[in-house]
């Protein structure tokens, strides 16, 4: 489809400065430990570090060998060890073990821990408790913002979600504030800040405080509007199966730090290939936001175009040939390589996703979102559990059911839980406790039995009229928050119209036209209304904590200025590629440019996995 962006849409700011900043700071920190040293890097920092500084840069600054932190005794011979880690107690304990082992063996070395993005007091307590506080020097590498793409900036803090929302541990709030502060100090000043959610509010306050403490310079803002949103405002969206290309790739192959590893079934050779997925990849850039059903058509068209471009060679004279080889051929080759990869990936996905069960899965999801044939959905989930299709998927469906129905009936809750435990072991009692704590999977409170009626009626009538009947019912009494929200914001488009996925009407296209993501809809509404007025009912259903602050420190308030139309959306707790696609769509429609700043890229599997208690 032709995504002709509005001609007046503003240019995105340049984020490469963030990388430079981080690199220079890291080099400075490495120089603080002069001489040759071995560098131990936390496993999940490997890829982010790779985006910032490559091995040769590190070698230039006297890093001798590089190791991954593996919680095993180290075999380094260097007398200077440098640890680049996240502020996690577990890792710090491991460092303590390393140091204590050296001490016991009578080896004297110099140690330095670089915490990123910041160090926590608890980490120092551990050093103190283990008696090595004096032996180790510590530093902070304020590497908050990793630009993944021209419009995505990642904090790479997956634990933010669990720590903050499940454990109630607010230690990352300040990190969020600092990240926003860093962004603000380079691309600000912001003139409008909107947000919803408790954590958002705290991050906002932490940021304000840091702004107050620091000095202020009057600058031309590059980004003028900010929207902060908590992940727990909208759990439904990330729990849905993704069907937009980039999201689907993430669901199936797992994109790690903007990079995906395609296995042999994709590359049609015997080795895996790592591919960077970002806007630099021309082929990918054009299909990333497309509904999967369009991708194949697009790719084959592309292949034909490519062939034509190759075919130009025929009938060229020597001179033309020369320019062709020097100017175009390389690009074509590159494009060819990428194209074949993406075709491979699409085929592999096709194989998995066009199977009957996937279709049925999608159908169930859509029924849940629309709220009819709930009984059928429950039996589908039951069968899903019984047949042990997938541990994570089953939980995902259970959560979706609970979220959309505002909890499960006590009877269903028990029986589904019991069956799940039989399938996957009793240790999932803890998982269920976590899910309950977070409100992802709960028991319906008495007095909310109307949905049962609805589903029974639905069963009786068993066709589209059921939807209307449900409507009638739900207006009668208290029902699921999601249903009410869905109605108020019209998240679920009327299902009797055909949805042409080639020409998307609205953001619902990212879920095959079945559902407009709540998070993105909120953003759209707030931007449209310039605040929360008129959304009182919605915010009440979302438990409040919304805020809107306009005008500060003499920033440019003209609504038409470019900076006002570049909007930073900060997701606290992660966001999905589908949401990013939806925002890109919204931006094209309205002449905005969205920049997504997220604590991590998430999807349904990551979200659910974060709820598991892995007992070692």
């Amino acid at each position: 489809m032709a995504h002709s962006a509005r001609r007046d849409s503003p240019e995105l700011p340049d984020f490469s400065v963030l990388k430079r900043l981080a690199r220079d700071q890291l080099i400075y920190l490495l120089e603080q430990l002069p001489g040759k040293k071995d560098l131990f890097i936390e496993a999940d920092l490997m890829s982010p570090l790779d985006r910032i500084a490559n091995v040769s840069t590190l070698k230039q600054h006297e890093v001798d060998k590089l190791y991954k932190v593996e919680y095993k005794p180290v075999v380094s011979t260097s007398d200077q060890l440098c640890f680049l880690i996240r502020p996690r107690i577990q890792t710090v304990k491991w460092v303590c073990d390393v140091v204590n082992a050296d001490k016991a063996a009578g080896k004297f070395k110099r140690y330095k821990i670089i915490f990123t993005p910041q160090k926590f007091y608890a980490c120092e307590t551990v050093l103190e408790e283990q008696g090595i506080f004096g032996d180790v020097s510590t530093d902070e590498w304020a590497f908050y913002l990793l630009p993944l793409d021209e419009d995505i900036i990642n904090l790479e803090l997956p634990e933010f979600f669990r720590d903050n929302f499940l454990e109630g541990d607010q230690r990352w709030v300040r990190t969020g504030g600092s990240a926003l502060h860093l962004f603000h100090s380079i691309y600000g000043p912001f003139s409008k800040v909107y947000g919803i959610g408790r954590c958002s509010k705290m991050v906002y306050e932490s940021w304000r405080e840091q702004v107050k403490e620091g000095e202020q310079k009057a600058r031309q803002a590059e980004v003028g509007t900010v929207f902060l949103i908590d992940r727990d405002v909208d759990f439904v969206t990330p729990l849905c199966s993704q069907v937009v290309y980039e999201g689907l790739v993430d669901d199936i192959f797992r994109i790690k730090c903007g990079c995906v590893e395609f296995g042999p079934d994709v590359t049609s050779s015997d080795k895996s290939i790592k591919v960077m997925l970002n806007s630099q990849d021309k082929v990918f850039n054009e299909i990333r936001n497309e509904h999967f059903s369009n991708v194949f058509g697009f790719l084959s068209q592309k292949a034909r175009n490519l062939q034509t471009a190759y075919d130009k060679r025929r009938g060229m004279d020597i001179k033309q040939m020369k320019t062709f080889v020097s100017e175009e051929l390389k690009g074509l080759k590159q494009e060819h390589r990428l194209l074949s990869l993406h075709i491979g990936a699409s085929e592999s996905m096709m194989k998995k996703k066009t199977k009957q069960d996937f279709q049925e899965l999608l159908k169930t999801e859509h029924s849940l979102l629309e709220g009819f044939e709930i009984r059928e959905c429950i039996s589908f989930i039951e069968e899903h559990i019984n047949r042990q299709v997938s541990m994570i998927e089953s939980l995902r469906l259970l959560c979706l059911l609970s979220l959309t129905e505002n909890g499960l009936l006590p009877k269903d809750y028990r029986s589904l839980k019991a069956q799940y435990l039989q399938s996957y072991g009793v240790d999932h009692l803890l998982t269920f406790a976590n899910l309950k704590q977070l409100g992802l999977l709960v028991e319906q409170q008495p007095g909310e039995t109307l949905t049962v009626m609805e589903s029974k009626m639905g069963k009786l009538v068993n066709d589209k009229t059921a939807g209307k009947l449900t409507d009638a019912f739900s207006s009668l009494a208290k029902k699921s928050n999601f249903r009410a929200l869905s109605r108020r914001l019209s998240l679920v488009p009327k299902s009797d119209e055909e949805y042409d996925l080639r020409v998307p009407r609205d953001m619902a296209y990212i879920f095959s036209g079945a559902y407009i993501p709540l998070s993105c809809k909120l953003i759209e509404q707030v931007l449209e209304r310039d605040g929360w007025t008129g959304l009182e009912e919605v915010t009440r259903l979302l438990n409040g904590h919304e805020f809107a602050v306009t005008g500060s420190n003499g920033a440019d308030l003209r609504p038409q200025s470019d900076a006002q139309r570049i909007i930073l959306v900060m997701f606290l707790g992660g966001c999905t590629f589908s949401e990013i696609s939806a925002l890109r769509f919204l931006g094209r429609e309205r002449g905005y440019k969205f920049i997504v700043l997220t604590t991590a890229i998430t999807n349904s599997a990551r979200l659910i996995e974060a709820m598991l208690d892995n007992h070692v």
Partner: protein
Amino acid sequence: MAFITANWNPLGEAFYRKTELYEMCWNLRDGLRDCLVAAAPYGGPIALLREPHRRSPSSRPQLEIYSASGNSLASFPWKSGPVVQLGWTVNDELLCIQEDGTVLIYDLFGSFKRHFSMGQEVVQSQVLEAKVFHSPYGTGVAIVTGSSRFTLATNIDDLKLRRLPEVPGLQGAPSCWAVLTQDRQTKVLLANGADLFILDNTSCTAVSPPGLSPQVSSIVHMSVSFSYKYLALFTDTGHLWTGSAHLQDKLSEVDTKIRNPPKQMVWCRRPKSQQPSVVLMWDRLLLVAGVCNDIIQFPVEEQCVCVGELDGVRVVSSSRQELLQEVPLVCQEIFKIASMAPGALLLEAHREYEKCSQKADEYLREIKEQSMLGEAVRQCVEAAGHEYDIQTQKTLLRAASFGKCFLTDFSPDSFVATCRELRVLNAVREAGVGLPLTHSQFKQMTVQVLIDRLVYRQFYPLAIEICRYLKTPDYQGVSRVLKHWASCKVQQKDLSDEAIARAVCLKVGDSAGVSYSHIAAKAYECGRTELAIKLLDYEARSGEQVPLLLKMKRSQLALSKAVESGDTDLVYTVVTYLKNEMNRGDFFMTLRNQPVALSLYRQFCKLQEQDTLKDLYNQDDDHQELANYYVTASYREKRLESRLSVLQSAVDEYNKAKNEFAAKATEDEMRLLRFQRKLDDEKGAGLLGLSLQATMEALLALGLHKQAEQLYRDFRVPDKRYWWLKLKSLAEKEEWEELEKFSKSKKSPIGYLPFVEVCMKRHNKHEAKKYVSKVPPEQKVKAHLAVGDLEGAADAAIERRSEAEMGRCLLVAPPPTGC
């Protein structure tokens, strides 16, 4: 005006003048007789200790502190031991060095601050003489003891005592000595008779000043210049030798013709001095001996004390104070009689101008012809800075201003700066304030230090006015003054907490750089905890509030402030502190009221202290969490028995939490574990730890159908699940007969379509077809399609009259050929 040179005395080619600074405000009955006097440079305060050596217990000596102008700041009877020497630090603190080597430190207002000792051995041998000296490292103290040993402390704020090596042949005190700071080292120069020694950290070196007359038998007095660059020695022959402090060069040797040693000897020079000199003082005579061998004599009527300054010598007597200095070159040029310097001409021009005389023009022309007008203005401005008399300053500045009018591109900066600075200087020179600073001293000292000095003397309004007038940035100026003011204010015992807090808040407001926590800390130091808490409320940064609150033992408040701040590290600091301070019960109770802190601590415990976690849940009667804790713990147990017992605890807790479902599930798990154990023992099946489903799968795979059946019944596994399981397992093992038997055992709860699909998965079309007929009509089409029976499917679809299903058939059908 003509009288400006009246008090000038020629010395060589230069002039010296003695300017009166103050009529002293003090009223000293016995003058300065029998007093130990210490006066600080830079117009610092004066301390007097009367009759320090009268040692009868009934009459204690009186210690008095005055400002430079003689205003009394403090006076109190001296109750400690005999004092050898008084001295001032660079921070305007008074050092009282006692005979026993103890040094007591008092502030400007006579309140005791702290003390330190110059070493244990001094208590025995006693201090004979002591000197206080200043260096770039701060204020130092040097003593010589009864055993003729020297001890040095270079910086009293960072006390490191250095005992210097022994001096050969020295008995008792040396005839004279001085402290030198050279090459970043502090040394002692001493004379024992005619011998000179330099003592440094490690050695004692004999030295001899170049060109000292050989007939000298003893050096009786010595003096080092303010900058430590020059040295003056007075010999028993009445000669004054001057030279560099390195003892490399000699400047001159003057015969004073007075044989008895002077009471005081001080260098008198100024930066860019033309004629440096040494001021010697005897009882009745003040002698200025220039390096040029010229001398000036001043008669002295009463006992005096000389204070060496950067650019002169202050002479303090009981009635007045004078500044003796070399007249600065620029002043000489302007005021010297018949001077034709451009500045002098400009001054004259302006004087004529004021008289409305046309001579003004002549003078101006003369200057302009030499194109020296700029120079003339500069001279007048500079000279104004050096003059102490306000009238003279004005005259000079007016002349400069007048001259400036005839210049087009003259930068006004120096003129403006001098005007401002003189205004400030005149204000602090007022007798009421009493800081007789010269312009050069002021420049050396900087505004910041001047403000500090004013603040020490509690001249807060003046300090603030000066800051505002000089437009000092708030951070260095007004805020700093306010901070000191507030710290002082909170010590006022006669005001209520409320009143002080209000007063402080009113004045300080939101001034940048004033930390309320700092003020609160001061209040707490004075024992006013309540006031401190009130003040802390104004503190915007929680990071600053919390440590002080902890110090004040307001841990609850500290915790809630920390939580409010949203800074988890801060919360954590408080939590760790509380953990160590409180008993466990109270600690947990405190946490309970602060959920944020509680979850932080829980997170930490999960990783570090599992047992504490259990205690925490116990305390809260949180049975649900406790049970979850046990479940987690059970996975850490290696042995089955202990695992079961931990799980039993979990069951108990779940029951207490009224979570019957979880209790039941856990009980089932225990049953399952026992069952698995039994089978493992009997058949070596390796089942332990598997889920129910996995166990059944494993059993079926092993062919243990009976046991699987038993589990199915015992654990009330839903029929559907069991059928799926068995179906899959049989198909996997391709036991088709078994499968058929199973399908007929009773009506399938999952229908027969799965049978078809399972067979097809194993590519067994033949078996699959057996079940197609059993499939209910609504799934028939699907079933037919699954086995690839297009015709059957089509028939079924037609039978059902379902267009959709017909469509599905068509979709898979091969494209029609032929037509």
